């Protein structure tokens, strides 16, 4: 069943799910201590100091236009629920804004402030791999749901919108074309923290530019980043015009002319591995076994970047392997400064050796 909360529910009604959720939270945190537990009821008064002070730039009521429908923020939100990929949560952490609900994360990201994460009222045990926990979101009594790049269809949007206003893109954006700056600005505007968001963006871009300046040896070189999913083959990440390509060009790399071929269909056939070629080739692997299998094939060995040793390989669990996710869907003001440092160091090793 679905709880549908009116905007001003009776006290008794709100108390019940909170108590229930606390009980569930205790139970689930015992069951899964490694994931940081389920719900942890914080003692902070609702809305008390969860967000930095308003800037007064955003005019409420604010209409949130999305591709799936329209909702309206009547006043500045205080209790924010955030769902979707890590950049959505990053956008709040970057602003120093604490949500009341977030999905669990399957990875401890190096750029995540764990203390801040622990202060969130409800960190769900469900991750992005699971269905949206509408009931848990409703129980956290949000007045805004940040769901940028995450709502699957109109039905999900309607269920979310029945809980609270929903922040989503005006047009559906393909996953590898997302602009992290746009996500940050949308969150900033909704929370009346636009100036802070601009600052966060320019700080991140400055950090990337600093890293680029420290690595002149990478300037003008081409780079391909791809992930070997073993059975489903190799996926090309740095497609022309995509998020990953924008990241590496900000780092000083030149766009790879071969990247145009993968815009519509980013998979690389085993027979055409030569198309991966670039001055620097970065391949992410699901695990070491997949890497060994791939590196044993003559066609992979024949890729010029591999043959000449201009090849970086990172398998899941190795230091810096979170880079895969940043290139895939995880780019944000927080993750990028970390990721470009890792990428520049690894690329630099093979370019200068």
């Amino acid at each position: 069943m679905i709880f549908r909360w009116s905007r001003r529910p009776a006290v008794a009604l709100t108390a019940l799910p909170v108590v229930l959720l606390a009980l569930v939270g205790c139970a689930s945190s015992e069951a899964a201590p490694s994931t940081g537990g389920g719900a942890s009821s914080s003692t902070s008064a609702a809305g008390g100091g969860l967000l930095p002070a308003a800037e007064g730039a955003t005019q409420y009521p604010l209409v949130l236009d999305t591709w799936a429908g329209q909702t309206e923020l009547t006043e500045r939100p205080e209790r924010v629920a955030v769902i979707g990929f890590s950049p959505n949560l990053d956008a709040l952490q970057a602003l120093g804004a604490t949500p009341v609900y977030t999905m669990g994360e399957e990875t401890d990201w190096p750029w995540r402030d764990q203390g801040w994460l622990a202060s969130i009222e409800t960190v769900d045990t469900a991750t992005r791999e699971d269905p949206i926990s509408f009931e848990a979101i409703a129980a956290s009594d949000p007045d805004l749901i940040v769901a940028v790049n995450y709502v699957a269809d109109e039905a999900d949007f309607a269920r979310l919108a029945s809980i609270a206003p929903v922040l989503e893109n005006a047009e559906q954006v393909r996953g590898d074309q997302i602009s992290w700056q746009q996500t940050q600005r949308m969150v900033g505007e909704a929370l009346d923290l636009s100036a802070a968001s601009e600052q966060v963006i320019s700080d991140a871009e400055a950090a990337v530019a600093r890293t680029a300046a420290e690595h002149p040896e990478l300037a003008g070189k081409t780079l391909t980043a791809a992930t070997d999913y073993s059975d489903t083959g190799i996926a090309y990440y740095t497609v022309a015009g995509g998020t990953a390509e924008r990241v590496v060009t900000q780092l000083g790399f030149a766009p790879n002319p071969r990247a145009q071929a993968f815009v519509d269909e980013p998979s690389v056939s085993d027979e055409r591995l030569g198309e991966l070629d670039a001055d620097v080739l970065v391949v992410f692997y699901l695990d070491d076994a997949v890497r060994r299998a791939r590196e044993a094939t003559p066609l992979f060995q024949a890729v010029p970047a591999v043959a000449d040793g201009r090849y970086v390989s990172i398998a899941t669990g190795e230091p810096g392997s979170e880079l895969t996710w940043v290139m895939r869907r995880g780019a944000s003001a927080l993750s990028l400064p970390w990721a470009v440092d890792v990428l520049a160091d690894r690329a630099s090793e093979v370019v200068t050796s």
Partner: protein
Amino acid sequence: MGGGRARRPRERGGHVLRRRRAGVAVALAALALAVLLSLAVGANPLPLGRVWEVLTHPDGSEASAVVWTERWPRTLVGVAAGAAFGVAGALVQALTRNPLADPGILGVNAGAGLAVTVGVALLGSATTGQYVWFAFAGAAAATVLVHLVGAGGRAAASPVTLVLAGVALGAVLGGVATFLTLIDPEVFRAVRSWGLGSVARTGVTDLVAVAPFLLAGLLVALALTGSLNALALGEESATSLGARVGLTRVLVVVAVTLLAGGGTALTGGLSFVGLMVPHVVRWSTGPDQRWVVAGSALAAPVLVLLADVLGRVVARPGEVQVGVLTAVVGAPVLIALARRRTASAL
């Protein structure tokens, strides 16, 4: 087996034999053509002349590597796994006397899938070489279990209890495997795609390792065909003809385990092949199991190779796994034949 050679009545005459010989010739020609297509067509647009060049004179070039290290292994795996599933399907349909049975009904796929999942869970990851043995062990264990449950203490299971036990256990094993993969989707990502069925995953080394099991299964299958013909007349008639019903059933389960288990280990399972190919073959050869088994061994690889070739070209520059396409390629053929002819009885 048991000396029971149930000869079909003679009035069928020479034209049937002629048609069967023609059918075998057509199947062989189709198989040769499918093998050539599989070597010639792929994501890398090599000219036909160049393919022929490197086939006859391997030269270490990129074209040579494409043909010999990418297309040749998957062609061999396609032929071996195709034949295995086709023959296993013919055996299961004959044993259960159910034209809708496929090797999966004995729990082969579910057992293999669960074993691979558990293997990955234990090792954290696995190479394709390890997958093969997990899958094979799982398939064998599942069919033995299904047979024991179906037999319920008797020497051999009756077809009906065998199917019931297979479906029930298959559901349980599949459920457990799904449960495991949901616990940690990232770790089991590879397992999920493994179940889709692919001929591009396994190398020649693994194929050579599994080949003896496939050959043994094929020989047992061919040896059983006479007894299966007798069984088609019903248990009592079969017994009076000298066929040993219980032994035949046990040996069929052994052969299906070897064939479908080996085929699943190599590919992850190509379920529709074992269901459809024996039907099409029966329409052409009639119900004589000797011809159905031989025909399925020739015709099934054709379906698998054609589906795989299609999978290489429909989503360029990527590929679609053959397991996704066998049904797409095969179903229209099955539907067309079903509309044109009376159903293939068993």
